[in-house]
Protein backbone atom coordinates (compact mmCIF):
# COMPACT_ATOMS: atom_id res chain seq x y z
CA UNK A 1 0.00 0.00 0.00
CA UNK A 2 1.36 3.39 -0.95
CA UNK A 3 0.71 6.47 1.12
CA UNK A 4 0.65 9.94 -0.36
CA UNK A 5 1.98 13.18 1.07
CA UNK A 6 -1.46 14.17 2.39
CA UNK A 7 -1.75 10.93 4.32
CA UNK A 8 1.69 11.36 5.88
CA UNK A 9 0.91 14.96 6.87
CA UNK A 10 -2.45 13.90 8.31
CA UNK A 11 -0.91 11.00 10.19
CA UNK A 12 1.81 13.27 11.61
CA UNK A 13 -0.67 15.89 12.82
CA UNK A 14 -2.94 13.20 14.31
CA UNK A 15 0.03 11.57 16.01
CA UNK A 16 1.07 14.94 17.44
CA UNK A 17 -2.40 15.46 18.93
CA UNK A 18 -2.46 11.94 20.35
CA UNK A 19 1.02 12.35 21.87
CA UNK A 20 0.08 15.74 23.31
CA UNK A 21 -3.00 14.25 24.93
CA UNK A 22 -1.26 11.18 26.34
CA UNK A 23 1.89 12.93 27.53
CA UNK A 24 0.15 16.06 28.85
CA UNK A 25 0.70 15.23 32.57
CA UNK A 26 4.44 14.90 31.99
CA UNK A 27 5.26 17.55 29.43
CA UNK A 28 2.96 20.34 30.57
CA UNK A 29 5.02 22.87 32.55
CA UNK A 30 2.04 23.99 34.65
CA UNK A 31 -1.19 22.57 35.99
CA UNK A 32 -3.99 23.63 33.63
CA UNK A 33 -6.47 24.42 36.39
CA UNK A 34 -4.67 25.06 39.68
CA UNK A 35 -1.72 27.17 38.55
CA UNK A 36 -3.81 30.30 38.21
CA UNK A 37 -2.01 33.47 39.19
CA UNK A 38 -3.75 36.73 38.56
CA UNK A 39 -0.42 38.52 38.82
CA UNK A 40 0.63 36.76 35.61
CA UNK A 41 -2.60 37.26 33.70
CA UNK A 42 -2.60 38.10 30.00
CA UNK A 43 1.14 37.80 29.56
CA UNK A 44 2.27 37.55 25.93
CA UNK A 45 4.21 34.42 24.86
CA UNK A 46 7.71 34.26 26.33
CA UNK A 47 10.23 31.67 27.49
CA UNK A 48 8.21 30.61 30.59
CA UNK A 49 4.72 30.75 29.12
CA UNK A 50 5.25 29.55 25.55
CA UNK A 51 1.77 30.43 24.36
CA UNK A 52 1.21 33.24 26.88
CA UNK A 53 -1.28 33.22 29.74
CA UNK A 54 -5.02 33.74 29.83
CA UNK A 55 -7.22 36.08 31.85
CA UNK A 56 -6.64 34.14 35.05
CA UNK A 57 -2.93 33.78 34.52
CA UNK A 58 -3.05 30.10 33.51
CA UNK A 59 -0.51 28.79 31.01
CA UNK A 60 -2.22 28.49 27.60
CA UNK A 61 0.31 25.90 26.40
CA UNK A 62 -0.47 23.54 29.29
CA UNK A 63 -4.19 24.03 28.84
CA UNK A 64 -3.93 23.19 25.15
CA UNK A 65 -2.04 19.98 25.94
CA UNK A 66 -4.73 18.91 28.42
CA UNK A 67 -7.43 20.09 26.01
CA UNK A 68 -6.11 17.58 23.47
CA UNK A 69 -7.26 14.79 25.83
CA UNK A 70 -10.82 16.11 25.69
CA UNK A 71 -10.77 16.61 21.93
CA UNK A 72 -9.35 13.15 21.31
CA UNK A 73 -11.80 11.47 23.67
CA UNK A 74 -14.69 13.28 22.04
CA UNK A 75 -13.44 12.54 18.53
CA UNK A 76 -12.78 8.84 19.08
CA UNK A 77 -15.61 7.88 21.42
CA UNK A 78 -18.29 9.75 19.50
CA UNK A 79 -17.13 8.17 16.23
CA UNK A 80 -17.09 4.71 17.78
CA UNK A 81 -20.69 5.24 18.92
CA UNK A 82 -21.60 6.67 15.51
CA UNK A 83 -20.05 3.74 13.67
CA UNK A 84 -21.67 1.13 15.88
CA UNK A 85 -25.12 2.66 15.46
CA UNK A 86 -24.67 3.39 11.77
CA UNK A 87 -23.21 0.00 10.86
CA UNK A 88 -25.73 -1.97 12.90
CA UNK A 89 -28.71 -0.17 11.42
CA UNK A 90 -27.32 0.11 7.88
CA UNK A 91 -26.10 -3.47 7.63
CA UNK A 92 -29.26 -5.06 8.97
CA UNK A 93 -31.42 -2.77 6.83
CA UNK A 94 -29.49 -3.61 3.68
CA UNK A 95 -29.39 -7.32 4.49
CA UNK A 96 -32.94 -7.95 5.58
CA UNK A 97 -34.70 -5.27 3.56
CA UNK A 98 -38.46 -5.08 3.83
CA UNK A 99 -40.17 -2.97 6.49
CA UNK A 100 -37.01 -2.73 8.60
CA UNK A 101 -35.18 -1.18 5.67
CA UNK A 102 -37.99 1.34 5.16
CA UNK A 103 -37.94 2.21 8.85
CA UNK A 104 -34.17 2.72 8.99
CA UNK A 105 -34.23 4.73 5.79
CA UNK A 106 -36.94 6.97 7.16
CA UNK A 107 -34.99 7.47 10.38
CA UNK A 108 -31.81 8.26 8.44
CA UNK A 109 -33.60 10.82 6.32
CA UNK A 110 -35.06 12.47 9.40
CA UNK A 111 -31.60 12.64 10.98
CA UNK A 112 -30.12 14.10 7.83
CA UNK A 113 -32.83 16.74 7.70
CA UNK A 114 -32.08 18.01 11.23
CA UNK A 115 -28.93 20.14 11.46
CA UNK A 116 -26.61 18.01 13.57
CA UNK A 117 -25.45 20.83 15.85
CA UNK A 118 -29.04 21.76 16.65
CA UNK A 119 -29.81 18.13 17.44
CA UNK A 120 -26.72 17.89 19.64
CA UNK A 121 -27.82 21.10 21.40
CA UNK A 122 -31.22 19.58 22.08
CA UNK A 123 -29.67 16.40 23.49
CA UNK A 124 -27.27 18.43 25.63
CA UNK A 125 -30.15 20.53 26.89
CA UNK A 126 -31.88 17.37 28.08
CA UNK A 127 -28.81 15.64 29.54
CA UNK A 128 -27.13 18.73 30.97
CA UNK A 129 -23.55 19.86 30.29
CA UNK A 130 -20.47 17.72 30.88
CA UNK A 131 -18.22 15.28 29.06
CA UNK A 132 -20.44 12.14 29.22
CA UNK A 133 -23.47 13.92 27.84
CA UNK A 134 -21.26 15.56 25.20
CA UNK A 135 -20.12 12.12 24.09
CA UNK A 136 -23.68 10.81 23.97
CA UNK A 137 -24.95 13.87 22.09
CA UNK A 138 -22.24 13.73 19.44
CA UNK A 139 -22.48 9.94 19.24
CA UNK A 140 -26.19 10.14 18.48
CA UNK A 141 -26.04 12.84 15.84
CA UNK A 142 -23.75 11.83 13.02
CA UNK A 143 -24.50 8.19 12.34
CA UNK A 144 -26.73 8.77 9.33
CA UNK A 145 -23.96 8.97 6.73
CA UNK A 146 -22.27 5.87 8.13
CA UNK A 147 -25.65 4.16 8.07
CA UNK A 148 -26.20 5.04 4.42
CA UNK A 149 -22.78 3.84 3.40
CA UNK A 150 -23.15 0.62 5.40
CA UNK A 151 -26.54 -0.02 3.82
CA UNK A 152 -25.39 0.53 0.25
CA UNK A 153 -22.22 -1.52 0.77
CA UNK A 154 -24.33 -4.34 2.19
CA UNK A 155 -26.68 -4.21 -0.77
CA UNK A 156 -23.82 -4.59 -3.22
CA UNK A 157 -21.96 -7.18 -1.12
CA UNK A 158 -25.13 -9.24 -0.71
CA UNK A 159 -25.07 -10.16 -4.38
CA UNK A 160 -21.42 -11.26 -4.20
CA UNK A 161 -20.78 -14.92 -4.83
CA UNK A 162 -19.23 -15.58 -1.44
CA UNK A 163 -22.22 -14.23 0.44
CA UNK A 164 -24.53 -16.47 -1.55
CA UNK A 165 -22.13 -19.36 -1.16
CA UNK A 166 -22.16 -18.77 2.60
CA UNK A 167 -25.95 -19.09 2.57
CA UNK A 168 -25.81 -22.43 0.79
CA UNK A 169 -23.19 -23.59 3.28
CA UNK A 170 -25.62 -23.06 6.13
CA UNK A 171 -24.35 -19.80 7.64
CA UNK A 172 -26.91 -17.93 9.71
CA UNK A 173 -27.79 -14.31 8.93
CA UNK A 174 -25.70 -12.84 11.76
CA UNK A 175 -22.71 -15.00 10.93
CA UNK A 176 -22.88 -13.88 7.30
CA UNK A 177 -23.08 -10.25 8.37
CA UNK A 178 -20.12 -10.47 10.70
CA UNK A 179 -17.81 -12.78 8.78
CA UNK A 180 -18.62 -11.94 5.17
CA UNK A 181 -20.12 -8.47 4.91
CA UNK A 182 -18.64 -6.42 7.74
CA UNK A 183 -14.95 -7.13 7.00
CA UNK A 184 -15.50 -6.32 3.34
CA UNK A 185 -16.93 -2.89 4.02
CA UNK A 186 -14.47 -1.86 6.75
CA UNK A 187 -12.61 0.43 4.32
CA UNK A 188 -15.31 3.04 3.68
CA UNK A 189 -16.55 2.80 7.28
CA UNK A 190 -13.05 3.52 8.60
CA UNK A 191 -12.71 6.50 6.29
CA UNK A 192 -16.08 7.84 7.39
CA UNK A 193 -15.11 7.48 11.04
CA UNK A 194 -11.80 9.27 10.57
CA UNK A 195 -13.40 12.13 8.66
CA UNK A 196 -16.14 12.26 11.29
CA UNK A 197 -13.54 12.71 14.05
CA UNK A 198 -12.65 16.08 12.58
CA UNK A 199 -16.23 17.27 12.62
CA UNK A 200 -16.73 15.85 16.12
CA UNK A 201 -13.79 17.94 17.38
CA UNK A 202 -15.35 20.97 15.72
CA UNK A 203 -18.77 20.21 17.22
CA UNK A 204 -17.22 19.81 20.67
CA UNK A 205 -15.53 23.19 20.25
CA UNK A 206 -18.81 24.72 19.15
CA UNK A 207 -20.80 23.22 22.01
CA UNK A 208 -18.18 24.19 24.59
CA UNK A 209 -18.06 27.66 23.03
CA UNK A 210 -21.80 27.89 23.63
CA UNK A 211 -21.23 26.85 27.22
CA UNK A 212 -22.82 23.40 26.94
CA UNK A 213 -19.72 21.24 26.69
CA UNK A 214 -16.80 21.03 29.06
CA UNK A 215 -17.40 23.25 32.06
CA UNK A 216 -14.82 25.72 33.33
CA UNK A 217 -12.30 25.62 34.81
CA UNK A 218 -11.39 22.43 32.97
CA UNK A 219 -9.70 23.09 29.66
CA UNK A 220 -11.16 22.22 26.30
CA UNK A 221 -10.24 24.02 23.12
CA UNK A 222 -13.78 25.24 22.62
CA UNK A 223 -14.24 26.57 26.14
CA UNK A 224 -10.82 28.24 25.93
CA UNK A 225 -12.10 30.13 22.91
CA UNK A 226 -15.16 31.22 24.86
CA UNK A 227 -12.99 32.57 27.65
CA UNK A 228 -10.80 34.34 25.12
CA UNK A 229 -13.73 36.17 23.59
CA UNK A 230 -13.49 39.21 25.87
CA UNK A 231 -9.69 39.35 25.70
CA UNK A 232 -9.28 39.11 21.96
CA UNK A 233 -8.34 42.79 21.62
CA UNK A 234 -5.81 42.88 24.45
CA UNK A 235 -4.42 39.35 24.38
CA UNK A 236 -5.02 37.73 20.96
CA UNK A 237 -2.74 34.76 21.80
CA UNK A 238 -5.37 33.45 24.20
CA UNK A 239 -7.69 32.89 21.24
CA UNK A 240 -5.15 32.20 18.50
CA UNK A 241 -3.48 29.14 20.02
CA UNK A 242 -6.62 27.10 20.85
CA UNK A 243 -7.94 28.06 17.40
CA UNK A 244 -4.73 26.82 15.80
CA UNK A 245 -4.96 23.59 17.79
CA UNK A 246 -8.50 22.98 16.57
CA UNK A 247 -7.56 23.88 13.02
CA UNK A 248 -4.49 21.64 12.90
CA UNK A 249 -6.10 18.62 14.53
CA UNK A 250 -9.21 18.79 12.30
CA UNK A 251 -6.95 19.21 9.28
CA UNK A 252 -4.95 16.22 10.47
CA UNK A 253 -8.04 14.00 10.87
CA UNK A 254 -9.39 15.02 7.47
CA UNK A 255 -6.12 14.47 5.63
CA UNK A 256 -5.76 11.11 7.39
CA UNK A 257 -9.28 10.12 6.30
CA UNK A 258 -8.67 11.29 2.75
CA UNK A 259 -5.39 9.44 2.59
CA UNK A 260 -7.00 6.29 3.99
CA UNK A 261 -9.69 6.49 1.34
CA UNK A 262 -7.13 6.88 -1.41
CA UNK A 263 -5.05 3.94 -0.26
CA UNK A 264 -8.04 1.69 0.43
CA UNK A 265 -9.84 2.43 -2.82
CA UNK A 266 -8.49 0.25 -5.62
CA UNK A 267 -9.71 2.64 -8.32
CA UNK A 268 -7.76 5.54 -6.88
CA UNK A 269 -4.73 3.32 -6.63
CA UNK A 270 -4.70 2.47 -10.31
CA UNK A 271 -5.27 6.07 -11.34
CA UNK A 272 -2.27 7.38 -9.38
CA UNK A 273 0.27 4.60 -9.58
Amino acid sequence: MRFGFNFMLGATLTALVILAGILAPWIAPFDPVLDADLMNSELPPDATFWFGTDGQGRDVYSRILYGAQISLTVGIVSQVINSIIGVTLGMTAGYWGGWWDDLVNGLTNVMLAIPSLIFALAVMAVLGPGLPSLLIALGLTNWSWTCRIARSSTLSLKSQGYVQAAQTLGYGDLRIMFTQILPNMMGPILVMATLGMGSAVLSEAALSFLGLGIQPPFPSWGSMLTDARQLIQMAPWVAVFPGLAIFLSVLGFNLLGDGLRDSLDPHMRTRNP
Partner: protein
Amino acid sequence: MTAPLLDVRGLKVAARLGDRAHPILKEVSFQIMPGEAYGLVGESGSGKSVTSLAVMGLLKKPLRVAGGEILFKGQDLLQLSKREMRRLRGNRVAMIFQEPMTALNPLSTVGRQIAEMFVLHQGKGWDEAQRLAVDALASVRVPNPDRRARNFPHQMSGGLRQRVMIAMALACNPDLLIADEPTTALDVTVQAEVLRLIKELCAERGTAVLFISHDLGVIASTCQRVGVMYSGCLVEENETQALFGDPRHEYTRGLLGALPRLGSRSQHGRQRLVDIDSIISDRSKLTETRFIAPRAAEGGQP
Protein backbone atom coordinates in the same frame (compact mmCIF):
# COMPACT_ATOMS: atom_id res chain seq x y z
CA MET B 1 -35.77 -50.81 -4.72
CA THR B 2 -34.17 -48.47 -2.19
CA ALA B 3 -35.89 -45.27 -1.19
CA PRO B 4 -34.76 -42.23 -3.14
CA LEU B 5 -32.51 -39.74 -1.35
CA LEU B 6 -34.19 -36.75 -2.92
CA ASP B 7 -37.73 -37.05 -4.20
CA VAL B 8 -39.10 -33.92 -5.82
CA ARG B 9 -42.81 -34.32 -6.45
CA GLY B 10 -44.84 -31.95 -8.55
CA LEU B 11 -42.75 -28.96 -7.58
CA LYS B 12 -44.33 -25.69 -8.61
CA VAL B 13 -42.53 -22.38 -8.28
CA ALA B 14 -44.18 -19.12 -9.16
CA ALA B 15 -43.01 -15.54 -9.40
CA ARG B 16 -45.41 -13.08 -7.86
CA LEU B 17 -45.41 -9.87 -9.82
CA GLY B 18 -48.14 -7.49 -8.88
CA ASP B 19 -51.22 -9.54 -8.16
CA ARG B 20 -50.49 -12.20 -10.77
CA ALA B 21 -48.47 -15.31 -10.12
CA HIS B 22 -46.40 -16.36 -13.10
CA PRO B 23 -45.54 -20.03 -13.12
CA ILE B 24 -41.80 -20.64 -13.36
CA LEU B 25 -41.64 -24.37 -12.60
CA LYS B 26 -44.61 -26.48 -13.60
CA GLU B 27 -44.93 -29.73 -11.70
CA VAL B 28 -41.32 -30.81 -11.86
CA SER B 29 -40.82 -34.32 -10.48
CA PHE B 30 -37.67 -36.38 -10.30
CA GLN B 31 -35.86 -38.69 -7.93
CA ILE B 32 -32.22 -39.02 -7.02
CA MET B 33 -31.04 -42.29 -5.49
CA PRO B 34 -28.33 -42.33 -2.81
CA GLY B 35 -24.93 -42.08 -4.47
CA GLU B 36 -26.36 -41.40 -7.88
CA ALA B 37 -25.26 -38.65 -10.23
CA TYR B 38 -28.25 -37.00 -11.79
CA GLY B 39 -27.95 -34.39 -14.51
CA LEU B 40 -30.28 -31.56 -15.30
CA VAL B 41 -29.78 -29.99 -18.72
CA GLY B 42 -31.58 -27.21 -20.44
CA GLU B 43 -30.99 -23.79 -21.81
CA SER B 44 -30.70 -20.58 -19.83
CA GLY B 45 -34.00 -19.73 -18.22
CA SER B 46 -35.38 -23.24 -18.35
CA GLY B 47 -35.54 -23.51 -14.56
CA LYS B 48 -32.50 -25.61 -13.68
CA SER B 49 -31.09 -23.20 -11.16
CA VAL B 50 -34.50 -22.36 -9.74
CA THR B 51 -34.99 -26.08 -9.11
CA SER B 52 -31.71 -26.30 -7.22
CA LEU B 53 -32.43 -23.16 -5.21
CA ALA B 54 -35.85 -24.50 -4.32
CA VAL B 55 -34.22 -27.67 -3.00
CA MET B 56 -31.81 -25.55 -0.93
CA GLY B 57 -34.69 -23.43 0.32
CA LEU B 58 -33.00 -20.29 -0.94
CA LEU B 59 -35.57 -18.92 -3.35
CA LYS B 60 -35.54 -15.13 -3.26
CA LYS B 61 -38.54 -12.89 -3.61
CA PRO B 62 -40.57 -12.72 -5.80
CA LEU B 63 -40.01 -16.45 -6.36
CA ARG B 64 -41.74 -18.87 -4.06
CA VAL B 65 -42.82 -22.47 -3.96
CA ALA B 66 -46.44 -22.71 -5.03
CA GLY B 67 -46.98 -26.42 -4.57
CA GLY B 68 -45.48 -29.88 -4.50
CA GLU B 69 -43.11 -31.66 -2.14
CA ILE B 70 -39.37 -31.93 -1.83
CA LEU B 71 -38.66 -35.08 0.15
CA PHE B 72 -35.12 -35.47 1.39
CA LYS B 73 -34.63 -38.82 3.14
CA GLY B 74 -38.39 -38.96 3.47
CA GLN B 75 -38.62 -35.55 5.13
CA ASP B 76 -40.43 -32.71 3.39
CA LEU B 77 -37.96 -29.84 3.15
CA LEU B 78 -40.73 -27.37 2.51
CA GLN B 79 -42.15 -28.04 5.98
CA LEU B 80 -38.88 -27.46 7.84
CA SER B 81 -38.32 -24.32 9.88
CA LYS B 82 -35.66 -21.84 8.82
CA ARG B 83 -33.34 -23.03 11.56
CA GLU B 84 -33.68 -26.72 10.65
CA MET B 85 -33.16 -25.85 7.00
CA ARG B 86 -30.01 -23.92 7.84
CA ARG B 87 -28.65 -26.86 9.79
CA LEU B 88 -29.24 -29.02 6.73
CA ARG B 89 -27.52 -26.68 4.30
CA GLY B 90 -23.81 -27.22 4.05
CA ASN B 91 -24.13 -30.21 6.35
CA ARG B 92 -26.39 -32.72 4.57
CA VAL B 93 -26.95 -30.81 1.32
CA ALA B 94 -24.16 -28.69 -0.10
CA MET B 95 -23.80 -26.66 -3.22
CA ILE B 96 -21.00 -25.45 -5.47
CA PHE B 97 -21.30 -22.59 -7.89
CA GLN B 98 -20.38 -21.56 -11.35
CA GLU B 99 -18.07 -18.72 -10.36
CA PRO B 100 -15.12 -19.87 -8.27
CA MET B 101 -13.58 -16.42 -8.65
CA THR B 102 -16.22 -14.74 -6.50
CA ALA B 103 -17.47 -17.57 -4.32
CA LEU B 104 -14.74 -17.19 -1.68
CA ASN B 105 -14.48 -14.35 0.80
CA PRO B 106 -11.48 -12.30 -0.36
CA LEU B 107 -10.54 -11.28 3.17
CA SER B 108 -9.91 -14.57 4.91
CA THR B 109 -7.61 -17.46 4.16
CA VAL B 110 -9.07 -20.47 2.43
CA GLY B 111 -7.98 -22.64 5.35
CA ARG B 112 -10.07 -20.54 7.70
CA GLN B 113 -13.04 -20.65 5.37
CA ILE B 114 -12.96 -24.42 5.17
CA ALA B 115 -12.34 -24.69 8.91
CA GLU B 116 -15.43 -22.61 9.54
CA MET B 117 -17.54 -25.44 8.10
CA PHE B 118 -16.31 -27.83 10.78
CA VAL B 119 -16.82 -25.26 13.51
CA LEU B 120 -20.27 -24.37 12.26
CA HIS B 121 -21.70 -27.80 11.60
CA GLN B 122 -19.71 -30.17 13.76
CA GLY B 123 -18.93 -27.96 16.73
CA LYS B 124 -15.20 -28.54 16.45
CA GLY B 125 -12.64 -26.20 18.05
CA TRP B 126 -10.67 -23.89 15.77
CA ASP B 127 -7.38 -25.75 16.15
CA GLU B 128 -8.84 -29.08 15.19
CA ALA B 129 -10.89 -27.46 12.44
CA GLN B 130 -7.74 -25.94 10.94
CA ARG B 131 -6.11 -29.37 10.86
CA LEU B 132 -9.20 -30.89 9.27
CA ALA B 133 -9.19 -28.06 6.71
CA VAL B 134 -5.67 -29.01 5.64
CA ASP B 135 -6.81 -32.62 5.27
CA ALA B 136 -9.80 -31.46 3.25
CA LEU B 137 -7.50 -29.51 0.94
CA ALA B 138 -5.33 -32.58 0.54
CA SER B 139 -8.38 -34.68 -0.31
CA VAL B 140 -9.25 -32.39 -3.23
CA ARG B 141 -5.66 -32.83 -4.39
CA VAL B 142 -4.40 -29.34 -3.78
CA PRO B 143 -0.61 -29.55 -3.80
CA ASN B 144 1.11 -28.31 -0.61
CA PRO B 145 -2.14 -28.20 1.38
CA ASP B 146 -0.30 -26.91 4.46
CA ARG B 147 0.96 -23.85 2.69
CA ARG B 148 -2.15 -23.37 0.56
CA ALA B 149 -4.41 -23.30 3.61
CA ARG B 150 -2.74 -20.04 4.57
CA ASN B 151 -3.33 -18.51 1.13
CA PHE B 152 -5.94 -15.93 0.36
CA PRO B 153 -8.32 -16.58 -2.52
CA HIS B 154 -6.64 -14.03 -4.79
CA GLN B 155 -3.42 -16.01 -4.57
CA MET B 156 -5.05 -19.01 -6.22
CA SER B 157 -6.02 -19.89 -9.76
CA GLY B 158 -9.60 -20.55 -10.83
CA GLY B 159 -9.16 -24.32 -10.78
CA LEU B 160 -7.64 -24.24 -7.30
CA ARG B 161 -10.43 -22.05 -6.01
CA GLN B 162 -13.05 -24.40 -7.39
CA ARG B 163 -11.22 -27.21 -5.57
CA VAL B 164 -11.42 -25.18 -2.38
CA MET B 165 -15.14 -24.74 -2.96
CA ILE B 166 -15.49 -28.49 -3.43
CA ALA B 167 -13.51 -29.06 -0.25
CA MET B 168 -15.86 -26.72 1.62
CA ALA B 169 -18.96 -28.31 0.15
CA LEU B 170 -17.78 -31.85 0.93
CA ALA B 171 -16.29 -30.94 4.33
CA CYS B 172 -19.18 -32.38 6.30
CA ASN B 173 -19.72 -35.40 4.04
CA PRO B 174 -23.12 -34.29 2.73
CA ASP B 175 -25.57 -36.80 1.28
CA LEU B 176 -26.33 -34.59 -1.67
CA LEU B 177 -24.10 -32.21 -3.58
CA ILE B 178 -25.72 -29.74 -5.92
CA ALA B 179 -23.27 -28.62 -8.58
CA ASP B 180 -24.64 -25.64 -10.46
CA GLU B 181 -22.55 -25.43 -13.63
CA PRO B 182 -19.38 -25.97 -11.62
CA THR B 183 -17.06 -25.94 -14.61
CA THR B 184 -18.53 -23.30 -16.89
CA ALA B 185 -16.03 -20.64 -15.85
CA LEU B 186 -13.01 -22.93 -16.14
CA ASP B 187 -10.99 -23.78 -19.22
CA VAL B 188 -11.33 -27.21 -20.75
CA THR B 189 -8.32 -28.96 -19.21
CA VAL B 190 -9.10 -27.72 -15.71
CA GLN B 191 -12.75 -28.56 -16.34
CA ALA B 192 -11.87 -32.19 -16.98
CA GLU B 193 -9.80 -32.38 -13.77
CA VAL B 194 -12.49 -30.80 -11.66
CA LEU B 195 -15.17 -33.06 -13.13
CA ARG B 196 -13.08 -36.14 -12.46
CA LEU B 197 -12.46 -34.91 -8.94
CA ILE B 198 -16.17 -34.40 -8.21
CA LYS B 199 -16.98 -37.78 -9.72
CA GLU B 200 -14.32 -39.68 -7.78
CA LEU B 201 -14.84 -37.94 -4.46
CA CYS B 202 -18.58 -38.44 -4.58
CA ALA B 203 -18.22 -42.07 -5.59
CA GLU B 204 -15.79 -42.60 -2.67
CA ARG B 205 -18.10 -41.04 -0.13
CA GLY B 206 -21.38 -42.20 -1.58
CA THR B 207 -22.52 -38.64 -2.12
CA ALA B 208 -25.33 -38.16 -4.60
CA VAL B 209 -24.83 -35.34 -7.09
CA LEU B 210 -27.38 -33.14 -8.74
CA PHE B 211 -25.46 -31.86 -11.70
CA ILE B 212 -26.77 -28.79 -13.43
CA SER B 213 -25.32 -27.82 -16.75
CA HIS B 214 -26.09 -26.71 -20.25
CA ASP B 215 -23.06 -28.60 -21.45
CA LEU B 216 -24.26 -31.95 -22.75
CA GLY B 217 -20.73 -33.29 -22.92
CA VAL B 218 -20.20 -32.66 -19.21
CA ILE B 219 -23.50 -34.32 -18.36
CA ALA B 220 -22.82 -37.32 -20.59
CA SER B 221 -19.46 -37.96 -18.96
CA THR B 222 -20.58 -37.63 -15.34
CA CYS B 223 -24.21 -38.58 -14.86
CA GLN B 224 -26.04 -41.87 -14.76
CA ARG B 225 -29.43 -40.34 -15.46
CA VAL B 226 -30.40 -37.12 -17.15
CA GLY B 227 -33.44 -34.91 -17.02
CA VAL B 228 -34.03 -32.37 -19.74
CA MET B 229 -35.69 -29.15 -18.69
CA TYR B 230 -37.44 -26.75 -20.93
CA SER B 231 -39.44 -23.73 -19.96
CA GLY B 232 -40.02 -24.88 -16.40
CA CYS B 233 -40.92 -28.46 -17.26
CA LEU B 234 -38.99 -31.65 -17.08
CA VAL B 235 -39.71 -32.72 -20.64
CA GLU B 236 -37.72 -35.92 -20.75
CA GLU B 237 -35.85 -38.12 -18.33
CA ASN B 238 -33.86 -41.23 -19.03
CA GLU B 239 -30.65 -43.14 -18.48
CA THR B 240 -27.80 -41.14 -19.97
CA GLN B 241 -27.04 -43.76 -22.63
CA ALA B 242 -30.65 -44.09 -23.66
CA LEU B 243 -31.28 -40.38 -23.73
CA PHE B 244 -28.33 -39.61 -25.93
CA GLY B 245 -28.91 -42.65 -28.13
CA ASP B 246 -32.63 -42.30 -28.56
CA PRO B 247 -34.01 -38.88 -27.65
CA ARG B 248 -37.81 -38.94 -27.45
CA HIS B 249 -38.76 -35.35 -27.04
CA GLU B 250 -38.65 -32.80 -29.81
CA TYR B 251 -36.62 -30.45 -27.65
CA THR B 252 -34.05 -33.05 -26.64
CA ARG B 253 -33.56 -33.84 -30.29
CA GLY B 254 -33.09 -30.15 -30.90
CA LEU B 255 -30.51 -29.91 -28.13
CA LEU B 256 -28.55 -32.87 -29.43
CA GLY B 257 -28.81 -31.56 -32.98
CA ALA B 258 -27.32 -28.27 -31.89
CA LEU B 259 -24.21 -30.03 -30.65
CA PRO B 260 -21.27 -29.76 -33.05
CA ARG B 261 -19.62 -33.12 -33.69
CA LEU B 262 -15.97 -33.51 -34.44
CA GLY B 263 -15.45 -34.48 -38.06
CA SER B 264 -19.09 -34.22 -39.06
CA ARG B 265 -18.32 -31.48 -41.51
CA SER B 266 -15.75 -33.39 -43.55
CA GLN B 267 -17.86 -36.55 -43.61
CA HIS B 268 -21.12 -35.12 -44.78
CA GLY B 269 -19.96 -32.03 -46.55
CA ARG B 270 -21.49 -28.81 -45.34
CA GLN B 271 -23.80 -30.04 -42.64
CA ARG B 272 -25.58 -27.36 -40.71
CA LEU B 273 -26.20 -27.48 -37.01
CA VAL B 274 -29.85 -27.75 -36.23
CA ASP B 275 -30.97 -24.49 -34.74
CA ILE B 276 -33.40 -24.14 -31.92
CA ASP B 277 -34.60 -20.59 -32.10
CA SER B 278 -32.51 -19.33 -29.26
CA ILE B 279 -34.79 -17.34 -27.02
CA ILE B 280 -37.52 -18.79 -24.88
CA SER B 281 -40.61 -17.24 -26.34
CA ASP B 282 -42.99 -15.13 -24.35
CA ARG B 283 -44.19 -17.34 -21.54
CA SER B 284 -47.73 -16.06 -21.79
CA LYS B 285 -48.01 -17.54 -25.32
CA LEU B 286 -47.17 -21.04 -24.15
CA THR B 287 -50.15 -23.20 -23.49
CA GLU B 288 -50.49 -25.75 -20.74
CA THR B 289 -49.62 -28.62 -23.01
CA ARG B 290 -47.42 -27.24 -25.74
CA PHE B 291 -44.26 -25.56 -24.62
CA ILE B 292 -42.26 -25.88 -27.72
CA ALA B 293 -44.88 -24.94 -30.26
CA PRO B 294 -44.18 -21.23 -30.68
CA ARG B 295 -40.60 -21.90 -31.62
CA ALA B 296 -39.44 -21.97 -35.17
CA ALA B 297 -37.30 -24.84 -36.46
CA GLU B 298 -35.43 -23.59 -39.48
CA GLY B 299 -36.72 -21.07 -41.94
CA GLY B 300 -38.83 -19.19 -39.49
CA GLN B 301 -42.16 -21.02 -39.92
CA PRO B 302 -43.53 -22.28 -36.63
